[in-house]
């Protein structure tokens, strides 16, 4: 499917700034009309009939010929229909500005790293995520000490009191996110967090127009271990917080039991900027909702030598001239 403008026939896209559908050709708002292709083949553009390269898990892409954003019905419906989505809140221009701001002090980055042309290649991608809910019962048993010290005359007293610590708490975790994409690096996707779930909404294919997307390509069971680890770490941290204040604590038993669990499928927005330098790829990811950036800028060896060498040469020149000035004045 794709969304066509009723007024001009152009491709209508979702505007993160306006939070609604927008035609970039005639500036019309909410003028979209859903058009489903007539060809059963996914690789044929329903707008221009051109052949489009479609990867195995792609659910939305752009036609290389007519630039229309296409959404593949069979990859957003049925078993692949997301239950929830956070629509893009940050547009490309805002992300470009954020990236420039973050990396402007990276002096040794290649000159064109932050150039307009390169940053324009940035793509908005909806990444498939599994969201896990857990009801848990957490138990802690241990022995804690509290130490008090005082001095009387020339004697120092140290009193150690021992306590039996018992904590039982119920923790309900909701929507622990784990990406369901083989292509997206797990550690980077974890760094993308947190997302603000107050903007989580029911899925509509309109949100995907203007962006790229993937359907989930890792099953819920396959990635749940990551969610459980996050849940377990957070539960342990909350247990520790509950008995803070002791000088030392010896653990006798701690346990996190899951009493109920479920998983839901949804999409989260990520901007991806892929910079290639000296044959190596440097991917940068920007949280499409919060603007958080993950990625390291490449280093231009030529710049390192030029800038550090110039600084060294300037310092040496200053030292030489100061010594001459002192001697001659």
């Amino acid at each position, binding site marked *: 499917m794709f969304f066509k403008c009723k007024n001009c026939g152009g491709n209508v896209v979702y505007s993160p700034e306006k939070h609604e559908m927008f035609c970039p050709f005639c500036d019309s708002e909410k003028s979209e009309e859903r058009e489903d292709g007539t060809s059963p083949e996914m690789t044929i553009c329903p707008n221009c009939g051109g052949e489009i390269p479609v990867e195995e898990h792609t659910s939305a892409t752009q036609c290389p010929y007519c630039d229309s954003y296409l959404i593949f019905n069979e990859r957003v419906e049925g078993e692949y229909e997301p239950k929830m989505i956070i629509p893009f809140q940050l547009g490309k221009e805002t992300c470009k500005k954020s990236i420039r701001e973050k990396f402007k002090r990276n002096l040794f980055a290649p*000159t064109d790293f932050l150039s307009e042309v390169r940053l324009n290649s940035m793509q908005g991608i909806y990444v498939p995520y599994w969201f896990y809910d857990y009801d848990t019962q957490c138990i802690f048993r241990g022995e804690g000490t509290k130490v008090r010290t005082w001095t009387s005359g020339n004697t120092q007293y140290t009193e150690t009191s021992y306590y039996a610590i018992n904590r039982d708490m119920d923790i309900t975790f909701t929507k622990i996110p784990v990406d369901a994409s083989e292509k997206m690096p797990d550690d980077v996707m974890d760094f993308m967090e947190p997302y603000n779930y107050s903007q989580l909404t029911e899925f509509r294919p309109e949100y995907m127009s203007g962006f790229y997307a993937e359907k989930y390509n890792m099953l819920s069971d396959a990635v749940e271990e990551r969610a459980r680890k996050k849940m377990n770490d957070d539960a342990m941290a909350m247990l520790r917080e*509950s008995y803070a204040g002791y000088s030392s604590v010896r653990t006798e038993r701690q346990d996190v039991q899951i009493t109920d669990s479920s998983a839901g499928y949804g999409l989260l927005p990520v901007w991806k900027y892929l910079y290639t330098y000296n044959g190596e790829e440097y991917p940068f990811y920007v949280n499409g909702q919060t603007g958080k950036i993950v990625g390291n800028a490449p280093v231009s060896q030529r710049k390192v030598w030029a800038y550090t060498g110039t600084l060294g040469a300037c310092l040496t020149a200053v030292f030489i001239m100061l010594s001459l000035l002192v001697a001659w004045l």
Partner: protein
Amino acid sequence: MSEDIKKEAVRQYLHYFRIWFIVVGVLFVATIAAGISHYIRNNAPRGNTSAPTERIFDYADVLTDNEEEKLRIYIAKREKEYRVDFVVMTFSRAVEGNEAQKQYGYDSTEWEHNMMDIADNFWDENGFGFNKSFEGDGSVLIDNRYEGQRGEWLSTSGRVESSLSAWDVEDVLYAVDDYYDTDPYEAYKAYIDAVCMNLDGIMVSDFSGYWVGAIVITLVICGIYAGIHLRPNKAQKNVAVNAYVAGGKPMLRNKEDNFIRKNVVKRRIETSSGGGGGHHSSGGGGHHTSHSGASHGGGGHRH
């Protein structure tokens, strides 16, 4: 790399180092100006023509005629090079005690005070000084060979006074001391060499120290600079532990902290008395004004 990117890279580079280039440029101009000024000064004729041309006053007859001649030539060479006067005066008479004070009309009965006065007065009365009489650039080393009151005193004036710290004066005197008893000619030559070394300042005496320091500072600054700019911008995990907890906090069903037992350990505090210390005094030459009102520096060693 396209032409546009190359141009942009050069523009960024020039913009980034503009302050440095301005500083280096200004220093360069100042250095050239100082160099020209230095050249003109060094090639200007001697400013003080009223002082005696003799530099060696060997009243105690410490040097042979040959040594005096050699020293005269050496002093002339060094004076031309450094544009300061080097004077050596030897004598042999009492400079300490009541009797000496009465006999010679000294201000003081002390060796140091009188040696200083003699040196300063000798300089002032003869009107030494390369660039100008009286308060001009140069120094005089006086050497008293009177038995029991032997020793030398260095009096400095003008540029020599301002260039030599109390420690530098001590260095000069120690250089003299090395030959004082064995070879007076070498001792006076050592005095001239030591003063010259100190006049050279950073260019000779501290040459290695200055450049080692400069190289180390440059390398350290460049290292820190490169390190700061090569440091990766690592993203931080900033997900709160309760980010995915319904209601933002857990439901605490049971919270018990039951006292079991306690124990008390006593420890006697050892008191210790100590301390003390000492003091040391340091000596050395200092700046003062002579009877005729000229400023002098210097110091002396008694043998």
